[in-house]
C-alpha cells in the first residue's frame, strides 16, 4: 500500500497521507477548514455534533466484476452517499470525493448551528471565551441570521457549577460535545467527568472525591469549544482581545512545556503588564498542546508581595537596603579579597545565560567550584551521552515500543511526560513501572487496574534503595520483562532518583544506560535515557559545568565566598545551616528570602522568567527560549546582568547588552551549543495538527507556536557511533540499622515551596504533611493510619501524619518534600519513625 492517496475536495485533487482523518487531511492539504465542534485532532472521533457534514462519494465499482466504473469521458464514476456524512469519522481513501460548498452542506451547517443556538444563552458579551469562541466564530461564518426559538422556552440551568477547585462549568453554555469528558478519559486516563441524564438534559458531572482534581484539568478549558468551562484563575479576568500573548517556557520541570503568557496592563498592578493567564503553545515534540495545572496556575509568584525588590548588604552586622552601584562596588572588593576561594551554587531553574555569566565571574576570580542545586539527582552527564536520540518524539512511541520508568513518580515530577507516556501505552507501547512504592503511573501499567482495560504493562516493586540492583540485574531477575524491553523496536528508560543517594542516582542512570547500550537502544530517534532532573534547566547546569558533586564538595569544604543563586538551601537541606556557618561571605541572589538573610552578606533581587528573556535546556536536551513578558519587580535584575555587572565592576570584561549576546558568547565557547543563537531558537515551522490560528475550533485555544520550536542538542551517541560501555559508578547502597527505617524523600507537584505558595488557588490542594509507612512496619511500631509520627533522619526531625500502605516496600517510609516547614533529608537516609499522637482528622 502506498503512503499517500488522492482525494478530491470541491473539485481539486490533493495527495494526502493514507489512513488520515478526512477533517485533518482537508485542512492540512487543501486548506479547507471543515467546521467541527466535537472532533478534536488529539482524540478519537465520536461524530456527535454533526457540524462536519459533507457530501461524500467514493469511486463506483461494478458489483459483479469489482472493476471501477467509468464515466463517458473515462473519468471514474463517483457514487455519493444518499445522506451527508460526518467528515470527522471518515478515513480518507483513494479516489474519495467530498463537496463542502454545496447548498445542502451549507444548509446542514446552518441547521446544526441553529439547533445549538436554540439552547445557548447567547451571553457572549460577558463570556470569557468571547473573542476566541469556536461557537461564536462558526456562527459568524456558517450560522443562521436569527434564532427561531422562543427565548422563554430555553432551559435555565446552573451557570456557576464548580467541578473542582479550579474549573467552573456553565451548564447553559455547554453544547455536549464531550471533549472534556474524552480528554479526561483518553488523554489523562482519569475518567472523573461524565454525562448525566440524557436527551436535552444531558449534562457534565463529576461524582469523584475529590472532584475534578487532576494535574491536567485546565486543558479542558482550552479544548472546550464554548465558554462552558472556565478556570478559577481567569474567570472574568479579561477579554481575550485585551491580551498580549508572549511566548514562554514553563519554569517548573524538565519537560519544558511551551507556553504563552497572556499579558494585560492592569490597574491593580500599577498599570503595568501582568500575567492574566498561562496558555499552552503548541510544540508537538515537547508538550503537544497540553500543559500541567501547575504551569497554568502556578505563575502568581511572579508578582508576589514577598518578592525581593531591593539589593541589600550587610554593614556593621546589619543588613541594609542599598542600591546597585554601591553593592557592585562593595562586592568587587570583597570578591577580589577571596583570593580565588570562591564557589557558586546555582539552582536548577536558572537560565543558560545566567549560568554562563555566573561561571565567568567565578572562574574570572580564580574559582572553579560550580555546584548544582539540589545535589540529589545525578546522571545529567549520562543523558548527555545516551539520552533520547536526536529527533525523538514521545508522541510517536506506540505498538512495538517499550518504556521503563524506574525510581520516579512521573506524575509528580514531570506531569507532561507522564501524560505522553501513558498515551504511548494507549497506542500499544509496553510500559513497565518500577519503584519501591505505588505511583500513579503504575495504575496504567497494571492490567485491569481501572476500567478492565487490557494494557501492555508490568510493575516491579523492590525494596527501599534497591533500584540500582534491580536495574543491573534486570535480565537475570526479571527475564520476561527484560526480554520484552530488549526486543522492543524502540525503548525509552526514565530513571529517577527516588529512594537513592546522589551516587545511587548516578549509578542507576549508568545501569539504565548500560541496558540501553547492550540492547541497542541508543543513538536512534525515540530511544534512550530520560531523567526527570529537578527544575527547568537541569541539563543546562550540566552543559555549563555545574554539578551536584561539586555541591557536595562545597558542603564539606566551605569556601570563603559562596554565591548562592536561585537556590533555597535552607528550605531544602536540613544540614545547610550548619555548613553555611563555615562560609565567610554569602552572596544570595533570588526571588525570595528563604531565611538566609540572617547569614548572608548580600541579598540581591533577581528577575523571574516572566520579566526577562532567556533559555533553558529540557530533559530531552532541547534548548528553548522564552521572551520578556512583564516589567521588573522593584530593582531586580536578570541574574546574568547581575553577574556580568559584577564582573564589569571587577574590571574583568564588559557587560553584554542582552541575553541574546550572552548566548553568542556561550555558544562560541561551549561546543554543545555550537550554532545555537536566539534567532535559530525562534524558528518555527508548520506543525501537525494545525491548531490555533484562525480556526480555533479545531484544536482549541492552544496557541500556534510563533516563539520558536527550539533546537535539540545531539547526545554523544547520536554523533559518535560505536558502543561505549562505561564502568558502573561505585555507589553507596543505602541501608538501615536495627530499629531503623529508610526515609525516602519524594516529590509532590503541589507543595509549600516559596515560589508555589503565592498561587493561592492551588493551596487547598497541597496536602497536609504526611508520610507513607508500610502497614506491617506500622503495626510493629504501633502506628495507625492518621497517627502523628515523628520522623528523625540525620539533621532532620519532622512531625507528620502517617498514611499506611501495603503498596510500599517494608522498611521504607516515603516522606514528601516541601510539605512541612522544616527541611527534610535531601536523599534517602536511615532514620526512625515513632508515634507521638493518636490519629487526628485530616486537615484537608
Amino acid at each position, binding site marked *: 500500500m502506498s503512503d499517500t492517496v488522492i482525494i478530491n475536495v470541491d473539485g481539486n485533487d490533493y495527495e494526502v497521507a493514507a489512513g488520515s482523518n478526512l477533517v485533518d487531511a482537508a485542512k492540512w492539504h487543501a486548506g479547507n477548514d471543515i467546521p467541527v465542534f466535537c472532533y478534536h485532532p488529539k482524540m478519537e472521533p465520536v461524530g456527535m455534533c454533526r457540524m462536519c457534514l459533507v457530501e461524500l462519494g467514493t469511486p463506483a465499482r461494478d458489483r459483479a466484476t469489482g472493476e471501477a466504473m467509468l464515466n463517458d469521458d473515462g473519468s471514474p464514476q463517483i457514487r455519493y452517499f444518499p445522506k451527508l456524512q460526518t467528515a470527522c469519522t471518515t478515513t480518507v481513501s483513494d479516489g474519495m470525493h467530498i463537496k463542502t460548498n454545496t447548498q445542502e452542506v451549507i444548509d446542514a451547517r446552518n441547521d446544526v448551528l*441553529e439547533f445549538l443556538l436554540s439552547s445557548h444563552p447567547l451571553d457572549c458579551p460577558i463570556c470569557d471565551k468571547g473573542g476566541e469562541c469556536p461557537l461564536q466564530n462558526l456562527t459568524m461564518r456558517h450560522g443562521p441570521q436569527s434564532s427561531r426559538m422562543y427565548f422563554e422556552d430555553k432551559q435555565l440551568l446552573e451557570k456557576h457549577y464548580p467541578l473542582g477547585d479550579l474549573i467552573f462549568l456553565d451548564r447553559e453554555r455547554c453544547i455536549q460535545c464531550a471533549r472534556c469528558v474524552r480528554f479526561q478519559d483518553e488523554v489523562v486516563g482519569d475518567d472523573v467527568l461524565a454525562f448525566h441524564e440524557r436527551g436535552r438534559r444531558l449534562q457534565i458531572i463529576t461524582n469523584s472525591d475529590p472532584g475534578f482534581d487532576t494535574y491536567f484539568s485546565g486543558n479542558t478549558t482550552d479544548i472546550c469549544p464554548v465558554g462552558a468551562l472556565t478556570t478559577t484563575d481567569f474567570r472574568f479576568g479579561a477579554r481575550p482581545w485585551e491580551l498580549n500573548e508572549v511566548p514562554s517556557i514553563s519554569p517548573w520541570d524538565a519537560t519544558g512545556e511551551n507556553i504563552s503568557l497572556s499579558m494585560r496592563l492592569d490597574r491593580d498592578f500599577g498599570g503595568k503588564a501582568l500575567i492574566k493567564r498561562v496558555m499552552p503553545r503548541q510544540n508537538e515534540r515537547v508538550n503537544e498542546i497540553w500543559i500541567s495545572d501547575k504551569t497554568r496556575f502556578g505563575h502568581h509568584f511572579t508578582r508576589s508581595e514577598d518578592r525581593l525588590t531591593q539589593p541589600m548588604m550587610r554593614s556593621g552586622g546589619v543588613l541594609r537596603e542599598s542600591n546597585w552601584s554601591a553593592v557592585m562596588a562593595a562586592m568587587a572588593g570583597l570578591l577580589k579579597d577571596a583570593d580565588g576561594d570562591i564557589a557558586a551554587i546555582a539552582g536548577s531553574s536558572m537560565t543558560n545565560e545566567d549560568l554562563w555569566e555566573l561561571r565567568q565571574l567565578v572562574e574570572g576570580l580564580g574559582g572553579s567550584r560550580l555546584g548544582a542545586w539540589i545535589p540529589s539527582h545525578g546522571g545529567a552527564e549520562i543523558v548527555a551521552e545516551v539520552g533520547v536520540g536526536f529527533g525523538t518524539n514521545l508522541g510517536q512511541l506506540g505498538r512495538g515500543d517499550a518504556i521503563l520508568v524506574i525510581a520516579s513518580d512521573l506524575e509528580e515530577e514531570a506531569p507532561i511526560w507522564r501524560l505522553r507516556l501513558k498515551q504511548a501505552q494507549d497506542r500499544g507501547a509496553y510500559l513497565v513501572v518500577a519503584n519501591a512504592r505505588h505511583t500513579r503511573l503504575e495504575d496504567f501499567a497494571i492490567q485491569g487496574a481501572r476500567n478492565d482495560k487490557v494494557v501492555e504493562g508490568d510493575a516491579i516493586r523492590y525494596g527501599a534503595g534497591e533500584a540500582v540492583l534491580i536495574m543491573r540485574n534486570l535480565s537475570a531477575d526479571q527475564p520476561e520483562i527484560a526480554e520484552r524491553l530488549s526486543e522492543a523496536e524502540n525503548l525509552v528508560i526514565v530513571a529517577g532518583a527516588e529512594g537513592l543517594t546522589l551516587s545511587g542516582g548516578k549509578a542507576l542512570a549508568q545501569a539504565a544506560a548500560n541496558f540501553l547500550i547492550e540492547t541497542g537502544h541508543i543513538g536512534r530517534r525515540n530511544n534512550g535515557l530520560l531523567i526527570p532532573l529537578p527544575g527547568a534547566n537541569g541539563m543546562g547546569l550540566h552543559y555549563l559545568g555545574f554539578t551536584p558533586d561539586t555541591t557536595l564538595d562545597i558542603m564539606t569544604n566551605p569556601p570563603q565566598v559562596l554565591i548562592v543563586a536561585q537556590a533555597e538551601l535552607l528550605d531544602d537541606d536540613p544540614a545547610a545551616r550548619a555548613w553555611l556557618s563555615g562560609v565567610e561571605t554569602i552572596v544570595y541572589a533570588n526571588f525570595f528570602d528563604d531565611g538566609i538573610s540572617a547569614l548572608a552578606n548580600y541579598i540581591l533581587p533577581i528577575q523571574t522568567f516572566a520579566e526577562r528573556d532567556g533559555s533553558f535546556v529540557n530533559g530531552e536536551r532541547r534548548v528553548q527560549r522564552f521572551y520578556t513578558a512583564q516589567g521588573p519587580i522593584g530593582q531586580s535584575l536578570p541574574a546574568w546582568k547581575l553577574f556580568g555587572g559584577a564582573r564589569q565592576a571587577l574590571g574583568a570584561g564588559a557587560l553584554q547588552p542582552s541575553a541574546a549576546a550572552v548566548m553568542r558568547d556561550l555558544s562560541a565557547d561551549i561546543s554543545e551549543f555550537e550554532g545555537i543563537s536566539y534567532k535559530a531558537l525562534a524558528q518555527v515551522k508548520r506543525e501537525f495538527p494545525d491548531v490555533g490560528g484562525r480556526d480555533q475550533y479545531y484544536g482549541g485555544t492552544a496557541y500556534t507556536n510563533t516563539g520558536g520550536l527550539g533546537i535539540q542538542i545531539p547526545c554523544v551517541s547520536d554523533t559518535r557511533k560505536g558502543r561505549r560501555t562505561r564502568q558502573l559508578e561505585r555507589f553507596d547502597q543505602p541501608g538501615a540499622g536495627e530499629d531503623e527505617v529508610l526515609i525516602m524523600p519524594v516529590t509532590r507537584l503541589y507543595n509549600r515551596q516559596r515560589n508555589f505558595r503565592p498561587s493561592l488557588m492551588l493551596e487547598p490542594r497541597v496536602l497536609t504533611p504526611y508520610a507513607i509507612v508500610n502497614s506491617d512496619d506500622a503495626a510493629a511500631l504501633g502506628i495507625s493510619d492518621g497517627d502523628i509520627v515523628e520522623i528523625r533522619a540525620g539533621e532532620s526531625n519532622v512531625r507528620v501524619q502517617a498514611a499506611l500502605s501495603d503498596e510500599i516496600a517494608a522498611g521504607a517510609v516515603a516522606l514528601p518534600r516541601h510539605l512541612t516547614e522544616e527541611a527534610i533529608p535531601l536523599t534517602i537516609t536511615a532514620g526512625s519513625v515513632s508515634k507521638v499522637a493518636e490519629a487526628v482528622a485530616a486537615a484537608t
Partner: protein
Amino acid sequence: MHILLRGRDIDNIKQLDVYERHGGFAGMKKALAMTPAEVINVVKASGLRGRGGAGFPTGVKWSFIPQHEPVKFVTVNADESETGTFKDREIMEENPYQLIEGSLICAYAIQAKAVYIYLRGEFWDIGDQLDECIEALRAKGYIGANIMGSGYDCEVYTHLGAGAYICGEESALLNSLEGYLGQPRVRPPFPAQKGGGLYKEATVVNNVETLANVPYILNDGADAFKAIGTEQSAGNKIYCVSGHVKRPGNYELPMGTTFRELLYEHAGGPLHEERKFKAMLPSGGSGPIVPLTDEVLDTPMSYEDCANIGTIIGSASIIVMDETVDMTWVASKVTKFFKHESCGKCTPCREGTYWLDKVIDRILDGRGSPDDVTRIADVAENMAGTTLCALGDFAANPIIHTIRHFPDDFAQHVSAQGADG
C-alpha cells in the same frame, strides 16, 4: 399455523420436555450436524429478514462475521421498546425455548463464544424465566461445554436494561451491555466487524422474533419457510395491533396479508362500530403515519408493498386511530416519546426533539401561529438525515407526516396571530 406463537397451540410449551416433544432442539441437532457455513446458507436461502425493524436479510448478516476471528458473540435484541410493540414479549413469555434454540443455532453458525439476551428492564419476570430455562438447558447439555456432544461450547446469559428505548438500537445496546451509556456508536466499524461489536469483537445482533424463526427453518427447511409470505418477505410475521380496534393483540400471519384482513377479520374492526378508522401508525411511533384509506387497507403487509404507500412495516406495531383522534395530539404524544428517549449524543436529535415538543405544546395550547406549523415541519426536515442514529429520523416522521396528511388537524389549533401575536 403458528410458527412463533406456539404457546397458543400447545399447552405448556414453556416446559422443556413439552418443547422437546414438539420438535424442540431438532433444528439445533440438524444444525450441529452441518458446518457453520452450511447453516448460514440455509438461513440465507429461507429469505428470513430481520424482524427488529429494518428487515435486513438475516443469513447475509451472519455471513458478514469474519470466521477467522477467535472470539465472537451473539446478542439478542429483546429491548422491545417501540411504541405499540409487544410481540417479543409474548414469544419470550410463552415460547422461551424456541428463542434460545434459535439463538444457539445462530451462535453455532458464527461460532460465537456466548449469547447475551438484552431485555428491556421492565421484562424483569421474563428475565427470571429465561434464566430458569437456561439452567434447565445447561442441565441437559444444550448449553455450556460440548453442546449435545458436538464439541461446540457456548454460554447464554440474560442482561436487563433499565428504561431506555435507544438501547434497542444495536450499537447503543452494545454500549449498554458493556456498562457504558446506552448511546449509539459511530459506524463503521459495524457490529459484525472486529472493533464494532460487543467488547470490540464481531457480533451478530438479532431481534427476538427473527431468531425464534430459525429453529423452524432448520427443522422444516428453507423452502418451507420461503413458501410462506411474499417473494421478498418470506415467512410469518407477528403483527401487534393496538388502539381503536375491538381485539387488540398479537396476530401471527403470513407476510403479505392485507391490512384489511388483519384489522377487520382478526382484530375485529373498529372498537366503536359507529366510528370510522382515520389513520394508522404501522410501525409504532417511528414509521410514517398513513390515513386508513381503502387503498391502504388493501395493501399487503410486506416490506416492499408498504414502501409503495409511503410507510414501512418495520416491527409491525400497528396503532389504529379512529376519526375522533386529533392528529396534532398524536404528533405531540409521539414527539414526547422521542424527546424522552433521545439519548442526547447528537445535536439535531437532542435539540430538535426538545424544540419540536415545545412548539407543538404551544400549538395544542392554542398559542401557536400558522408559522409555527411550517416551522416544526421545517425543523423536522432539518433533523432527518443528519443524526447519528435513526432515532432522529424516527422523531422527524410523526411531525412531517401528520402535517402532510392531516393539515386541517393542525390548522384548527392555530390562529393567524397566534395567542401572543
